[in-house]
């Protein structure tokens, strides 16, 4: 295998891996944001979203 072929293969492999890594990283980011949004959810936000004056929790 000559140098040019080796480099070509190397770049090809890195490009492929980077693309897979890029997709994974994006979904990791989305998953982190979704988790953060749930943790940071405030009472007032839920109240506004539910369009209610008060929220009641029932005991099972």
């Amino acid at each position: 295998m000559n140098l040019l072929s080796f480099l070509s293969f190397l770049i090809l492999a890195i490009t492929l891996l980077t693309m897979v890594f890029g997709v994974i990283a994006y979904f990791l980011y989305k998953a982190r944001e979704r988790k953060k949004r749930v943790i940071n959810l405030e009472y007032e936000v839920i109240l506004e979203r539910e369009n209610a004056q008060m929220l009641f929790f029932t005991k099972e």
Partner: protein
Amino acid sequence: MVKIFQKILFVLTMVGGLYLTYLSIDHLEAIYITTASSFIRFGVIFIFAFTLFIVIRYLALMFFSVIQTIQTSADENLSNTYSELVTLVVPCYNEEEVIVPSLRSITEQTYPNIEIIVIDDGSKDDTYKLAKSFEFDNGYKSLRVISKANAGKSKALNYGIAQAQGTLICTVDADSRLDKFAVELLVQRFRDPDIAAVAGTVSVVNTDTFITKLQALEYIEGLNMVKNGQAFLKLVNIIPGPLGMFRKSAMKKVGYYSHDTYAEDCDITLSLIAEGYKIDFEPDAIAHTEAPENLLDLLKQRYRWTRGILQAIRKNKRFLWHVRGNASISFVMWYMLFESIFWPFIQIWGDIFMIYLALTTGTSQLLLFWWILFTVLDIAGAMYCLLLTKEKLSLAAYSTIYRLAFITVINIAKIFATIEEWFNIEMSWGKLERRGRIG
């Protein structure tokens, strides 16, 4: 000596770039002749046209940038006589980590006639208390802090502008530290009455990790080559959040900041260009800001930027075909559309096409030539920009990884952001956590 070495390296990379362009074209031609597949033929022509376009873009921006730099150097001899009152508006939300060095740098500005208005946009931390300790009024300079309920950056900016006495409005992000001559340099650009806004330079302050070094390189190229090139045409397309100055009367004419996009800075710049105003750039007015230090934070930032820019483009889409009415806005819109959508899509499509080509025809050298060609262009661009700035020459070496991995990952995030914007998927501002690196 170092500068001479840099210049020699710059010339060598440019010559190398031209040789690689020739090799790539030669390779593409060979594939085109030998293949019978119409898909591959189409792909080859497409890649050729795209590559040629990118090479021309690089050369044109570099050429415009060189002329702009020469013009700016000639203008430096003009006397400093412009002394209008400038109002600095600093919107902040939960900035306790960075507000002190930021306000200290603002109060230390050399420009004498300054009014500083800090808008605390309902912070839940000690931002208001810390900012309040800076309040003063000595007749020439003053700083006051106003607190309001949280409603977003654009509304905080408009709230501050409504209180402003100055005829020039300088907007500064609370996570940025200004060089002491920044305001003075920006003001001088307003000698031309057609100038409605001037963009400042943004410099990455935390260049101690691999990912922030890559961003530093990106900022240097994006500002010194791209923005400087755009400044030659007086059509800078975005006034950056960390530092920008506006003529208040022009802002009033376009209705100040709008609240319907996540890129209010891009939106207002487009509105000003559409009104026929000129937008300039001052390379020596520097705001130091901290860049995201991990990949997920970086993706979060780029996701918001991409969707914000697309929202601004969509909002102003009527100007895309406005060539006869105002060719400038039409040109800027197409340029932004290319940079934010077409380029990422074509780059990723090109990579996939070449991988397909390698797997089906065994021709894997094209991807190597393509990558080297773009890397050489990046190195040449970086060399040129590093010649203009005081940044370290070693940053140019990061161009190899920049093109091979960094841009690919960013482009993938841009593509997903574009798709989500297309389908109107809900999004939030996505504020980054500050680490207090600007002090």
